[in-house]
């Protein structure tokens, strides 16, 4: 399965997957024997539609339950079996995912939504009804920093367009200060200018120690941003390597890119 750069866990937290399968009816969507994600700062996950990329991410986050297999978070000397934890516990451990399909809280404004993401459990107790000031003072500056970079038509109100909701989703995840951020088509629906801003922001976070695993159909983003690329087809990762190796590989060209793309 593995060619090119192998993944060797170093100082970063990694996700080790073994024997992971998921089927819907008769169709096996994910069938991965062994895979390590997060060893490199930025890892791309590409493949044709239906290859199982989004399902793999959902299995890691346990928003979909696997039929078999284990997903383990290795962080320094500790190992945690993610495939036995509730989704909110996985997020608490620093494994966070943006959504492919736009998601938002209908009743919350942009600021509300970001303060919600930033607030800690201790701030959200039923008896702490005067805690708002503390939360605003603690996280307000950081939130304003993001809102200065990414433009919203009405920062004090609700996110309107799909693009704004996509950005909001990303900022919410960044406010969780993840160790590993899974991005599922983060730039879909965004303009070229905003996409550049997003990638710039992500590079800053990666430099600060965050790892990124990105599924993206805009291959220019994958080739320019990833340190290593995993190529998925028919539920399995069939090829791994640096972007130049992957984009020139005959299997990728044949199954995904087409001969005119290299």
């Amino acid at each position, binding site marked *: 399965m593995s060619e090119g750069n192998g993944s060797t866990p170093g100082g970063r937290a990694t996700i080790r997957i073994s024997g992971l399968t998921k089927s819907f009816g008769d169709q096996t969507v994910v069938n991965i024997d062994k895979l390590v994600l997060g060893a490199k700062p930025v890892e791309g996950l590409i493949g044709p539609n239906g290859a199982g990329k989004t399902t793999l991410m959902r299995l890691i986050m346990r928003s979909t339950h696997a039929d078999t297999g284990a997903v383990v978070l290795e962080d320094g000397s500790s190992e945690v079996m993610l495939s036995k934890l509730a989704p909110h516990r996985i997020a608490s451990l620093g494994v966070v995912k943006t959504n492919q399909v736009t998601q938002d809280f209908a009743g919350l*404004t942009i600021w509300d939504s970001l303060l919600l993401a930033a607030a800690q*459990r201790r701030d*959200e107790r039923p008896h702490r009804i*005067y805690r708002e000031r503390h939360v*605003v003072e603690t996280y307000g500056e950081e939130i304003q920093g993001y809102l200065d970079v990414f433009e919203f038509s009405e920062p004090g109100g609700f996110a309107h367009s799909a693009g704004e909701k996509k950005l909001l989703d990303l900022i*919410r995840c960044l406010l969780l200060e993840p160790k590993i951020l899974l991005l599922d088509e983060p730039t879909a629906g965004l303009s070229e200018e905003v996409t550049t801003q997003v990638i710039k922001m992500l590079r800053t976070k990666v430099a600060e120690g965050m790892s990124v695993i990105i599924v993206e159909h805009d291959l220019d983003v994958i080739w320019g941003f990833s340190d290593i690329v995993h190529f998925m087809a028919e539920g399995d990762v069939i090829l791994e390597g640096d972007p130049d190796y992957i984009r020139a590989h005959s299997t990728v060209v044949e199954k995904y890119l087409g001969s005119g793309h290299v």
Partner: protein
Amino acid sequence: MSAVWDYLFGSPAFLIFGTYTLMMIVGLGILLHLQLGVTGIGNFGVAGFWGAGLYTFGIMQVTYDVGFWLALLAATAAGGVLGLITGWVIADLDDDGVLAATLAVATIVLLAIESEKDITGGRVGLGTIDFPFDIGDRTDLAWLAILFGVTGVLLWYARRVHRSPYGRLLIATGTNEPLARSLRKPVKRTKVGVMALTSAGMGALGGLYGPIVHFLFPTQLTVAITVSVITALVLGGQQRPLGAFVGAVLTVGLFDIAIKLYVPLPKDLLEHAFPVTKQIIFGALLIFVLLFRPLGILGGMRRERHVKGLSRV
């Protein structure tokens, strides 16, 4: 002047009892607002949680001769424990399942009260329960003042919740559970917690109702209480803390106080046709509001206002 006074307050006992009911509906409505309007939990068993408190209070006072404060504490705990268990059961159910399960809880409470005659008195009733103090003619008024105070505290708490990180967590839980989970929010624990807390409040209100009626009967716990609370909240605005108050004034205030006191209806009509007509009007009102103003008279939450005021928080 004296004539006006007599006209308005000529039947003080009736006016006071009507206002007790009004305050009870407002209090329960505020708690239901936190469940339904904020967290999205459609509790159709309000009468059960309230009744659990009412009967626990009565049993403690009458059967075990326990003092007022301990009995009230037991009533609060009974509502809270029932809410905790119910919250745990309904946390993973869809909206229809929650409605059915909470209605089932209220039915179980009612059937338990009717069948456990040795403890509850069954259909014969349980009594008598007196006020914890006696200041003569003014005892009723003093109790009403206490109920006003308790309702005021509930309103104050609900308003503070809207302006707190806890309120934001409840809104997030009510509007998009998977997204809330992905932001490390413990959705199930949050729902169980809010059910336990608000049901404890309903139990406490039940306990406070005991001295008003003096004698407890299972007929006091029918679905009519739940329907009155839901009608008031939906009419006033389920997403607003004051919604229950506005709705209760326009329903209970209008029908159970104003019309009964000040409209000279024939006694026979008042006793037989009026209660049925009232329920029909409540039902029609609910349908009308849900069709033409789903968020009620006061409308939806005003989160933009809160955000604008964040610098002053």
